[in-house]
Every structure is written in structure tokens, then in C-alpha cells.
């Protein structure tokens, strides 16, 4: 940092990032990597809540909002699961352990883990890379197991190779008491003896009790049909939470990109309860 | 003007056209807007007078994608743009019913205001049946007058002529408005020293706010995605961070339309900062005329443009330095 102290006068300089060092990279699927990020002097860059996001940037290449996939209960580092799908993510995938990136955040609101979700039976529904934001909540819930009721995790992806965090799912989540994991893949595949079928149809097959609180994240088309399925099972909008993705630049509700109705997704979101979503104009 | 409305109603009624593209009266006497009319009732708001400067050819790109024919009113200079768009396959001739409308020179309210006239309540004398010598302007600060020619857009002083290059029928009389040489401004700049030229353009272009109005209004700028909207460049598309960028933008924009620009003058008309953008285009036109023979884009729908053509004995680029 420079010797200039003019920025210190203002409490939080949200547009100037911190430097993060990549301390571990896990190849989750052919196109998803999970990056572990620490502050250069060790430790975490900042504290966050489950569902919050951060702006990750490779200087000169680009900057984008990613959800923090590690749980706040992890006191050592932050993780981002990133799917390769553009200029920035291509570049991120080419980085190695020890490379530096810049990170600013955390931004946005979070899943209400300490309020509305407390004591509830939880149902997580995720598709593909949509597990990334939910993973942070799931691990938070597992680490504070006594505060919550039963946990059901319904997770699906295109194929068995595209399931993110499979190791953690099998070794931690499946073995935790009161946590039921339901995995599914879109098409039959050799070596897969689990369920085959789309997430929304599996959801209906499983016939979850409609007193659970649901957290959904995945591709828009999946969310659409999951919602229909939940409605059929008798779930109300007030029981369903989701998280949004929109183009963002500032992350602090000022640049105007993610403005939908009177809400800014980066500041008032990304987590919305479905009754709030219904009040927004149809521009998401 | 009423005859235009009547004719449009006829063509709508007999099913020749599905809609009319013209100008709708604004809430001030000087701000009519381009508009579509779908019925005889809507045509009650139709207006055509000296303030209807917008070149509707550009709107025909979108109109060509609609069902049925669109009746469009084109002024003589607009028809050049339309022809050029046909050449580039950006509009569909079959989807257009063109009424060539006469033109008596188009007005700019900026030119009126430049004479110190403010608080304009109404302007008389801009109609097609008026004499085109004086505008009578009622303002909050008293009644004023302004000569019609002084209020005219620059492009009308160097008018290309009263002939429509393409039309299905022609209505209303045009007027000779040309009273200046087309290349006089360009020649004046050419005569300057490099230092003076640089200072002149630096001053003018430093006003640019990169609003892209010149690009978006330009009938030749019909690319679906502009090179300046590409995320692949690190040059800002939205702000002039340094003075280089406005030069880059305007030179390249003029270059991309060189040989296709009909000199319709819309860029200069819409520039909120009054930058004489037509100078860039006209410089290219002048050079093309000098180096490769006279060429007027939009005169026809077939010929090859000068930059997609060549001869074996074209001048060498070194001519630029040699001519002094």
C-alpha cells in the first residue's frame, strides 16, 4: 500500500480491494475449481455470513461477483467455487497456488441463519454450480447442528462428474446425524447407482413434508420448475429462499446495474425470500 | 401538411401500408419526435414542418423487420441514406412505401437560442406553407424574430439538392437553400498549420461526452454490435479518460462510414455539445472525390463503394505529405 493516508479517514473503502493469495486449488469437476484464499499475512481476508458474496478480480482481466462458498465457521480461509465460463473465469482457472488476486467484500445480505432459519427443518435444493452459495449455509448449519432441525439436501447436476464438492458431501454431510443427502444426475451413467432424473422431478418423488424451509439455487430453468414442484407439495412463498446473480460492478448499490425495481441485488440481495421476489418487476 | 395526412390516411385505409412513419407534434413548437402512426386517429398528431429534421431512414432498419409495409416520409437528403441502406441490405425496399416530401431547409432551435433568444413559447413561420424568410418567436421575455436561413442547420446551407433519389411518390415543393460551398469549412481547416489544426480539433473534441448520439443516429452506423461496444478493448467506450480517446472514437467512426456516409448531417445535428462532426465525414468525402473520382454515397443502390474498390494506378499514401 502507498503511504497516502487519506483513505483512512473513511471507515470502509469499499471500492479499493484487498490482496488475496491463493493457497489451494481443487479441481471439482472438469470446469469447476474451488479456490482457497487467504490474506498475504495469513488468516482470513474478512468475516462474512452465509450467502454473502465478494468481488474477485484479476487486475487487467476483469472483476466479478462470486459467492463465498466456505462457511463463516471456518476460521482459516475463504473459498470460492468458480465455473469456467468467460474471460475472467478462464484466467482464474489458469492461476496457480501462490498467485495473488484482489478481493473486495463481503457484499450483500445473507441467509437468515441466526433468525428465521433457527430451529427449522431445512431443505436445500441445488443444481450444478448452484451448490456454491448453499454450501456455505450447509456447513454453517452442520457446525451449529443443535440450532436447527432436520436437514435435507437435494443436489443434482448434468452428470456424476459435474457434482461439485463430492468429497465433502460423502465424507462430511452424509455422515452427519440428521442430514439426508439426495443426489441425482440428469442422465444414466456407468458407475452411477444413485438416482437419475432432473432435480424438480426428484423433488416431487421425495415428497418432502411442507413444513420445511427451502433454500434454492441453480440455473433459472431449474428454479422455475422447483418452485412449481414446491407449490404442488404445498409450500408457501414465505418458506422459500433463493439467491440471485446479476451483472454487478460496484457491489454497494450505487452503480445501478443490478437495480430491479427499488431493490439492488448486490445490496438488498442476493438472498431473497420468494414473497419478496414476487413483488419485484419481472426483469431478473 | 394536411395533404400528407390525407394521403397517409388513404394508404392506411386501402391497406397499401400497415403503419406510417413520420413525425409527431411535440409539446413545444420545436420538438416534434419521430413516431409511428397506426390509425387515422393517431395521424391527427402528425406534423411536418421546419423542425422535422430527423432522418427517418435509420428507423426503417427496424421497420423493415415488422409485418407489412411502412409508409415513410423522406426528405431529399434522407433518400440518399435509404439508398445506401438498401445497398447494404439493411432495409427492405419491398417493406417501404416512400413518400418523398419536399423540404424548405430544416431548423435548429440551438441556432435560434444562439442569437440570445430564450424562453421560447411558440415559433411561427416554420410551416411548409410559410414564406421561409422570418420566424416570429414569442418568448417569455418579449416577441422576437429570427431569419429562417440563420436558424437553418449547417447541412441545409450546403444542400445536395431537391431531387429525391428514391420514392414511390413525391409531395410538397422544396426550396433551394444552398448558399455555401460544401467543402469550404474543410478547406479552411486544411489551410491551417498543423498546430492550428490540432488546437482546433482539441478544442472541439474536448467537449465530447461520449454519449454516442452521433453513432446511434447515423444511418451508416447500422452494425448490430459496434466495435466501440466490444469488451475486448481496454479503451473506455463510455468516457474520455484522456484526450486520445475522443480522437480515436471520432476518427474511427468517420473511417468506418467513409465511402458510405451520405453527408446527411445528422451527427452534427444531434451532438449535444455542438461539435461539427460532419467535418470528419466531409474530409473523407473530399479526399475520395479528389483521389478516386467524385462519388456520392446513396445516389444509387448498386455501385461499389470507394473503399471496397480500387484501381491499379491509385495514388500512393505518400501523396498526403507531398501535396504540402
Amino acid at each position: 500500500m502507498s503511504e497516502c493516508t487519506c483513505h483512512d479517514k473513511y471507515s470502509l473503502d469499499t471500492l479499493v480491494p484487498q490482496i488475496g493469495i491463493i493457497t489451494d486449488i481443487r479441481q471439482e469437476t472438469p470446469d469447476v475449481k474451488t479456490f482457497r484464499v487467504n490474506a498475504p499475512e495469513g488468516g482470513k481476508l474478512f468475516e462474512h455470513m452465509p450467502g454473502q458474496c465478494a468481488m474477485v478480480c484479476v487486475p487487467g482481466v476483469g472483476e466479478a461477483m462470486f459467492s463465498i462458498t466456505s462457511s463463516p465457521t471456518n476460521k482459516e480461509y475463504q473459498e470460492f467455487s468458480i465455473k469456467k465460463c468467460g474471460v475472467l473465469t478462464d484466467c482464474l482457472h489458469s492461476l496457480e497456488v501462490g498467485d495473488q488476486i484482489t478481493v473486495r467484500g463481503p457484499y450483500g445480505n445473507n441467509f437468515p441463519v441466526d433468525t428465521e432459519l433457527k430451529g427449522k427443518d431445512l431443505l436445500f435444493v441445488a443444481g450444478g454450480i448452484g451448490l456454491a452459495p448453499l454450501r456455505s449455509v450447509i456447513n454453517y448449519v452442520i457446525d451449529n447442528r443443535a440450532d436447527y432441525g432436520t436437514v435435507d439436501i437435494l443436489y443434482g447436476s448434468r452428470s456424476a462428474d459435474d457434482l461439485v464438492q463430492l468429497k465433502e458431501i460423502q465424507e462430511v454431510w452424509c455422515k452427519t446425524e440428521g442430514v439426508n443427502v439426495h443426489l441425482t444426475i440428469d442422465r444414466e451413467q456407468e458407475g452411477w447407482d444413485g438416482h437419475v432424473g432432473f432435480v424438480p422431478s426428484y423433488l416431487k418423488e421425495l415428497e418432502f413434508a411442507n413444513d420445511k424451509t427451502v433454500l434454492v439455487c441453480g440455473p433459472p430453468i431449474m428454479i422455475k420448475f422447483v418452485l412449481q414442484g414446491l407449490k404442488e407439495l404445498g409450500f408457501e412463498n414465505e418458506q422459500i429462499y433463493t439467491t440471485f446473480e446479476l451483472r454487478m460492478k460496484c457491489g454497494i448499490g450505487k452503480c445501478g446495474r443490478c437495480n430491479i425495481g427499488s431493490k439492488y441485488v448486490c445490496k438488498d440481495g442476493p438472498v431473497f425470500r420468494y414473497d419478496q421476489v414476487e413483488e419485484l418487476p419481472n426483469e431478473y | 401538411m394536411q395533404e400528407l395526412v390525407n394521403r397517409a390516411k388513404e394508404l392506411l385505409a386501402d391497406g397499401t401500408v400497415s403503419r406510417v412513419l413520420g413525425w409527431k407534434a411535440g409539446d413545444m413548437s420545436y420538438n416534434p419526435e419521430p413516431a409511428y402512426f397506426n390509425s387515422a386517429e393517431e395521424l391527427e398528431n402528425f406534423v411536418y414542418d421546419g423542425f422535422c429534421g430527423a432522418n427517418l431512414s435509420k428507423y426503417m432498419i427496424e421497420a423493415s423487420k415488422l409485418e407489412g409495409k411502412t409508409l415513410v416520409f423522406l426528405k431529399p437528403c434522407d433518400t440518399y441514406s435509404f439508398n445506401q441502406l438498401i445497398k447494404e441490405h439493411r432495409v427492405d425496399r419491398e417493406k417501404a412505401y416512400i413518400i418523398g416530401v419536399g423540404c424548405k431547409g430544416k431548423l435548429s432551435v440551438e441556432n435560434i437560442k444562439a442569437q440570445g433568444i430564450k424562453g421560447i413559447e411558440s415559433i411561427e413561420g416554420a410551416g411548409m406553407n410559410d414564406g421561409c424568410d422570418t420566424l416570429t418567436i414569442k418568448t417569455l421575455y418579449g416577441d422576437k424574430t429570427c431569419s429562417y436561413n440563420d436558424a437553418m442547420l449547417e447541412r441545409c446551407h450546403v444542400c445536395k439538392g431537391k431531387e429525391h433519389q428514391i420514392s414511390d411518390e413525391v409531395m410538397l415543393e422544396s426550396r433551394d437553400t444552398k448558399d455555401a460551398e460544401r467543402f469550404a469549412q474543410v478547406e479552411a481547416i486544411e489551410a491551417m498549420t498543423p498546430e492550428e489544426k490540432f488546437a482546433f480539433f482539441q478544442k472541439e473534441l474536448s467537449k465530447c461526452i461520449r454519449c454516442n448520439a452521433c453513432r446511434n443516429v447515423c444511418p451508416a452506423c447500422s452494425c448490430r454490435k459496434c466495435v466501440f461496444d466490444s469488451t475486448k478493448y481496454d479503451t473506455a467506450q463510455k468516457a474520455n479518460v484522456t484526450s486520445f480517446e475522443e480522437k480515436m472514437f471520432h476518427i474511427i467512426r468517420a473511417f468506418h462510414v467513409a465511402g458510405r456516409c451520405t453527408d446527411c448531417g445528422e451527427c452534427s445535428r444531434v451532438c449535444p455539445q455542438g461539435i461539427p462532426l460532419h467535418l470528419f465525414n466531409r474530409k473523407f468525402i473530399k479526399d475520395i472525390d479528389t483521389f478516386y473520382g467524385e462519388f456520392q454515397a446513396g445516389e444509387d443502390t448498386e455501385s461499389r463503394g470507394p473503399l471496397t474498390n480500387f484501381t491499379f494506378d491509385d495514388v500512393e499514401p505518400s501523396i498526403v505529405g507531398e501535396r504540402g
Partner: protein
Amino acid sequence: MYKIAKSNLPELYKAIAGSKELYLPLENAGQVNFGPWSEDCTPDIETLKSVKSPKDVFFPQSENLYTCQKEGKNIKIDPEKLKDQDFVVFGMKSCDVKGVEVLDKVFLADPIDTYYAARRDHGIIVAMACHEPEESCFCKVFGIDAADASSSIADVATWMIGEDLYWKPLTEKGEALTSELSGLLSSDGDENKVEEEKQAITAIINKLPYSDLSLEGWDGDHFEEKFNATNWEELYKPCLACGTCTFVCPTCQCYDIKDYNTGNGTQRYRCWDSCMYSDFTMMAHGNNRNSQMQRFRQRFMHKLVYFPTNNDGMYSCVGCGRCVEKCPASLNIVKVIKNFGGDK
């Protein structure tokens, strides 16, 4: 009440510029815009409106945020120095001052935008009453008083009356500036003259064609009705999707953040952006406002519905009329309001 002869204004500018940066309306190549004072500039305070609003004094069209340098694997971040010297903006009209108030709601809301906040902390606003308002003005609709900036966030209010400029400090900052300039300002300004001028201005404003626009129904309660109205389908048609309206507007605050590769580092800068541009909301998985109608609607819904919903009914339009004058297709917020029945 202080006053100074208009003929002495060049001295006043010089005196201010002696100790502080001074921004004022300058004529350049036939157009008037706010810019920094220099020895050879041409101030023009007679022209009612600058082409661009003076918002760029506080929120520049482009500004550096920081510079990034890579040394091996290491990244070094050098934040841009914040404004740390006082500066004066001279000749802002009431609508433009209100525009800054609107920007404050955005940039000074938590989390604070430090770059903007530093400029606001150091800026001294000298407002000027509108001697001869024009037909495109409709500040009255938003409760702004073009005749008197006293109840705004300005630090000094001024009036141009005859051959004199009347000067009234409003805040501590304004008082301090006034005492610095005490050698040039005489303290015998006649309050009655200012009162007369105010009445004269108000009388003109009441006669302006747009002064009786009605904003009834433009609020959060009517959001769905407005959003789903079919009016938009017709209204947007002439729109060229340029950014003129947003760039001349005193309240538009959308911006873009970009990187520039200088050859030995990356400059992170932000620049104004326009919600009218087709790529404004473009991202990897698509565009959530992919038609011009949606983008057009967004701009006006934001100004007249979303912003007041979030800010106790304060509209994000100040009626300066710049879009009325500058839109290449003669579209503007007034036509939108009227189309929804606001001209009763």
C-alpha cells in the same frame, strides 16, 4: 447581504483561485460547461444552463480508483489520492444543487463512496439564482426554488441583479469563504432588491409551460400500474439508445468500473455509464433487460418510482430540462409524465 459589481467578478475569481481550486461555467468552442478556472479561460455566467450538469465536479465522468502493479506473483495496490483541498463551485443553479442532494442519497448512503465523500467534504457550493428561467425548466414541479438557494445544501446563495452580484453566505463554509473575500465584497447589499428579484423570478416560473405538471401517481404504491402500462411500448419508439439524457442529467449516477492496461500496470477507473446502453446489464448468462423498451422504462421508473420509494418520496429528477433540450429524438421525462396524464 453582500454585493460585488459584475465588472469585478474576474477579480473575485482570481481571489478565490488564489487559495482554492475554482470551478465555474466556462465557454469553450461555443458551449458552456463547468470547468476549472485558469488565467485564459472564458467564464460565462449569463448562459442559464451548462450543457453537462456540474455533477462532474463531485462525480467526474471518469476517475481513477487505484493503480495495480504486478511484481512477480505479488500485486501492489496504490489507491488514488482523495481530494484533500477545499475547492469552490461557483454559479450552480438551484436544480443542480438539488441534483447533488440526490447524489448524496446514493453515494453517502452506507457504505459511503469515499471518493465522492472526500469531494463533498471539501467542496464549497456557491449557488446562483436563475435570472431568466427558460421554457424547458420545470424545477417548480419538484419543489425547487430557482429564485433562492437558501434552503438547499448550498454554502452561499447569489443573485445577479442589474450590474451587481448579490452574495449571501448560508453556512459556516460559506461564511469562511465570504470573510476570505471581504476585500472584494461590500456588505451593503440591499435585501429589498433581492426580494424584488426573487418575486420577479417566481412570477416567470409560474408562467413556464411545464410548471404545472402533475406527479400524481408516481410513487411506490402505483408501481405495478406504471410498470405494466402499455404507454411504454409507444413512448420508447423514437429512442436511439444513446446516452445523451443520462450524461447531461444532474442526477444520473450509474457508473462502470473498468481496467486500463498502461503497459506497466493496470489502472482501475470508473466512468459514467448509461442504463440506455444495450450492454449495461449484459453478463455471462444473458441480459435481464434485453429490449430498449425495458431499458427506457427502467430509466424513468428509477427516477420517478424506485428512487422515491427508497428515499422518502424524493424524486431523482430536478427539472433542469437538459434532457428536454438535448435529446436527439426530442424525447424526455416531461413527455413521459404527460403521456401518463401529468398535464392536467
